[in-house]
C-alpha cells in the first residue's frame, strides 16, 4: 500500500499536468524546508547523545567517501551517453549529493513497516551533502582545463559547508544531542508530532515543481529518462553494500541505499550554477527532480527496503 505522503506528491504532479493555478507560496516552501531539516537533525541528535563516538567515525568516513566517489564513477558513463564534460560533472554532483526529502520519506516508510534503523541517521545526510558537490566541481574543472577557467575554491567551500541545509541539519543534531530527550520534550509538539503531515505538504510542493519539469523531459530526449531511471538502482546497490560493510541494521542499509540513490535538487543546483555555469542547469534539475525524485519516492524506496531485507 502506497504511503499517504506519496499521494500528496502525485496530487502536485497532477495539478501541474492539468495546468491548475495551484501554487504554494514561496515562503511556505522555504518554511517547510527549514522545518524538515531542523526536525530531522533534532530527532537524530537526541539519539546521538546515547551513542559512543567510536562507532560513528567509520560511518562518517564511509559517507564522505561514498558521496565523493559517486560523481567520479558516473562520469565515464555520462560521457558515454554523450553528455558534455561539464554536464557530466554537474549531473554527477547532483547524484553524489543527497535529497533530504527522499530520506524523510524513506524513514517514514521504515517506521510504517516497523523496521528499525540507526536513529542518528540524520548525521549521514548532513555528511553526504557536500562531498558530491566538491567532486563535481573537481570533475568540471578538469573537463574545462583547456579553457583556463580557475575555480575559486574558498568561497565555494564556504557556501557548501555553511549552506543552510548542512547548517540546519548539524544545528539540529547538536541541539538534540546537547538538550537530550528531556530538554527537547517541550518542543516535540512542533518538531516531532507534525513531521509526517508537514512532509506531506512539502511533497505536494515538490509534486508541483516536478510536474513542471515533466514538460522539459521530452526536450532532453530519452538519454535523460534512461539516466534517471537506470542510475538510482545501481547507486542504491552501492549504498547498500557500504551499509552492509559498516554493519548497519536492515533499516540503516535501506537508508544508506536511499541516500546513495537520491539526487540533490536544492544544494546541488545552486552550487553548480555558481561553480559550473557552463553546465545546463535545466538538464540536471530535470533529471534530479523530474525523474530521480519521483522514481525514488514511488518505486525506489520500497525496492531499496526489500533489497536491505534480503541483504541483512
Amino acid at each position, binding site marked *: 500500500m502506497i504511503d499517504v505522503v506519496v499521494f500528496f506528491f502525485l496530487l502536485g504532479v497532477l495539478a501541474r499536468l492539468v495546468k491548475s493555478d495551484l501554487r504554494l507560496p514561496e515562503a511556505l516552501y522555504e518554511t517547510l524546508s527549514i522545518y524538515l531539516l531542523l526536525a530531522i537533525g533534532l530527532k537524530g541528535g537526541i539519539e546521538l547523545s546515547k551513542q559512543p563516538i567510536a562507532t560513528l567515525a567509520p560511518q562518517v568516513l564511509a559517507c564522505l567517501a561514498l558521496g565523493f566517489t559517486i560523481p567520479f564513477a558516473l562520469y565515464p558513463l555520462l560521457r558515454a551517453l554523450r553528455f558534455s564534460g561539464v554536464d557530466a560533472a554537474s549531473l554527477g554532483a547532483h547524484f553524489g549529493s543527497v535529497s533530504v526529502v527522499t530520506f524523510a520519506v524513506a524513514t517514514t516508510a521504515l517506521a510504517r513497516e516497523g523496521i528499525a534503523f540507526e536513529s542518528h541517521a540524520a548525521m549521514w545526510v548532513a555528511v553526504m551533502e557536500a562531498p558530491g558537490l566538491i567532486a563535481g566541481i573537481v570533475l568540471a574543472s578538469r573537463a574545462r582545463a583547456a579553457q583556463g577557467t580557475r575555480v575559486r575554491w574558498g568561497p565555494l567551500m564556504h557556501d557548501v559547508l555553511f549552506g543552510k541545509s548542512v547548517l540546519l541539519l548539524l544545528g539540529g543534531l547538536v541541539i538534540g544531542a546537547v538538550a537530550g530527550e528531556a530538554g527537547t520534550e517541550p518542543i516535540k509538539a512542533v518538531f516531532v508530532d507534525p513531521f509526517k503531515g508537514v512532509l506531506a505538504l512539502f511533497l505536494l510542493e515538490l509534486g*508541483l*515543481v516536478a510536474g*513542471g519539469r515533466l514538460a522539459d523531459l521530452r526536450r532532453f530526449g530519452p538519454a535523460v529518462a534512461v539516466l534517471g531511471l537506470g542510475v538510482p538502482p545501481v547507486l542504491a546497490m552501492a549504498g547498500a553494500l557500504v551499509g552492509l560493510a559498516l554493519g548497519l541494521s536492515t533499516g540503516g542499509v535501506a537508508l544508506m541505499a536511499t541516500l546513495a540513490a537520491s539526487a540533490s535538487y*536544492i544544494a546541488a*543546483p*545552486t552550487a553548480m550554477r555558481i561553480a559550473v555555469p557552463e553546465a545546463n542547469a535545466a538538464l540536471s*534539475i530535470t533529471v534530479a527532480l523530474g525523474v530521480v525524485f519521483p522514481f525514488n519516492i514511488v518505486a525506489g524506496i520500497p525496492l531499496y527496503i526489500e533489497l536491505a531485507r534480503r541483504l541483512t
Partner: protein
Amino acid sequence: MTLTKHPKTLLTIVTEAVLEGALLRDLRERGAHSWVVGEVHGANLEGVRDGDWEADRTIEIKVLCESEVADRIADHVLHAYARHYSMAIWFSAVTVLRPERY
C-alpha cells in the same frame, strides 16, 4: 516651480538570483555607491512563472550613477557573466536633484 536637475544614468540588470552576491561586489568595486534590488520573475507562454524553484529566481538590480560608472559596470558584467547566465541590461537617462550623491 522648476528644480535644477542633473543628468545621470540608471543602469538596470535583470539576471539570475545566484549572481546577486558576486554582482554587488563588482558594482562596488567599479564605483557604485548604492543600489536597489527587487525580486521579479520571467514567465512563459502558459503563464507558468519561473521562480518556483530556489535555483531559479530572478532579480532586478538598479544602479543610479554616472554614465561612465554604468558603462564600466555593464562592460564588466557582460564579459564576466552574460555568456553563461540569463541576463538583460539596459541604460536609461534620468535626472536627479542631488548629483553629488550618485
